[in-house]
């Protein structure tokens, strides 16, 4: 914006110059009357030749040792800035890549962790189920065993009881009836009764 207005001013200025020139003209005409006039436009050798020499000397000096240094430095600076910008750009791209990589890795790790946790949970669940099942099995087994044992005990106890009942009844009967009863016959008789009673019981 600033440059634009400056340009506009410059543009205006050049057109102003023409009017500036015409403003100066009456004065020049005065000079003409005084005999100045055209002599203004004749180069004076005393100014012309020193200028030629001075300009050429300056040109040679500056072209040899002045400007190349300055323009060379300008070029070098340009190049350096361009290079460092490019480097920065590359570094940025690289770091972005790294960041993306790291992000991907992080995501992966997160997914993995989630996986691991899920696996562990599953395994835990399985283990739990297993253990529970085992425990249930075991307890069922134990219960079954206990049942069996109880059954056996019961049977044994019943058998014991039967025998002791038989003995007891025999002895009681023997006591009641007398002692002439042969043990063997009576025993058989009682056993039959008891068996009958047991089968009745069982039924």
């Amino acid at each position, binding site marked *: 914006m600033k440059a634009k207005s400056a*340009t*506009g001013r*410059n543009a205006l200025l050049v057109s102003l110059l023409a009017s500036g020139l015409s403003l100066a003209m009456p004065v020049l005409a005065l000079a003409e009357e005084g005999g100045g006039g055209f002599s*203004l436009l004749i180069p004076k050798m005393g100014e012309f030749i020193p200028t030629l020499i001075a300009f050429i000397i300056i040109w040679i000096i500056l072209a040899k040792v002045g400007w190349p240094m300055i323009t060379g430095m300008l070029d070098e600076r340009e190049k350096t800035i361009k290079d460092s910008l490019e480097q920065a750009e590359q570094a940025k791209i690289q770091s972005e890549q790294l960041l993306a990589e790291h992000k991907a890795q992080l995501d992966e790790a997160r997914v993995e962790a989630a996986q691991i946790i899920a696996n562990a949970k599953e395994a835990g669940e399985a283990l739990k189920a297993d253990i529970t099942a085992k425990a249930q099995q075991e307890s069922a087994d134990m219960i079954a065993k206990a049942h069996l044992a109880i059954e056996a005990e019961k049977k044994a106890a019943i058998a014991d009881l039967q025998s002791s009942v038989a003995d007891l009844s025999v002895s009681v009967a023997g006591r009641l009836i007398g002692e002439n009863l042969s043990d063997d016959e009576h025993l058989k008789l009682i056993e039959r009764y008891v068996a009958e009673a047991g089968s009745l019981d069982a039924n």
Partner: protein
Amino acid sequence: MAVIGYGLAVIGAAISIGISCFGATTSMARQPEIQGRVFTTFILGAAFAEALALIGFVLALIA
């Protein structure tokens, strides 16, 4: 007389510089991104137009 002639000569140069300035500002306003080129061309055109005024200036001094 020479001064009057020079004044007349300057009218043309002034008009042409004014016109080129008008064109330059118009095109700059329309397309600000090429103002560098436009300005250079404008200066050139103004310089060529001004050259005529300068010839008039020289002639005014000679006459």
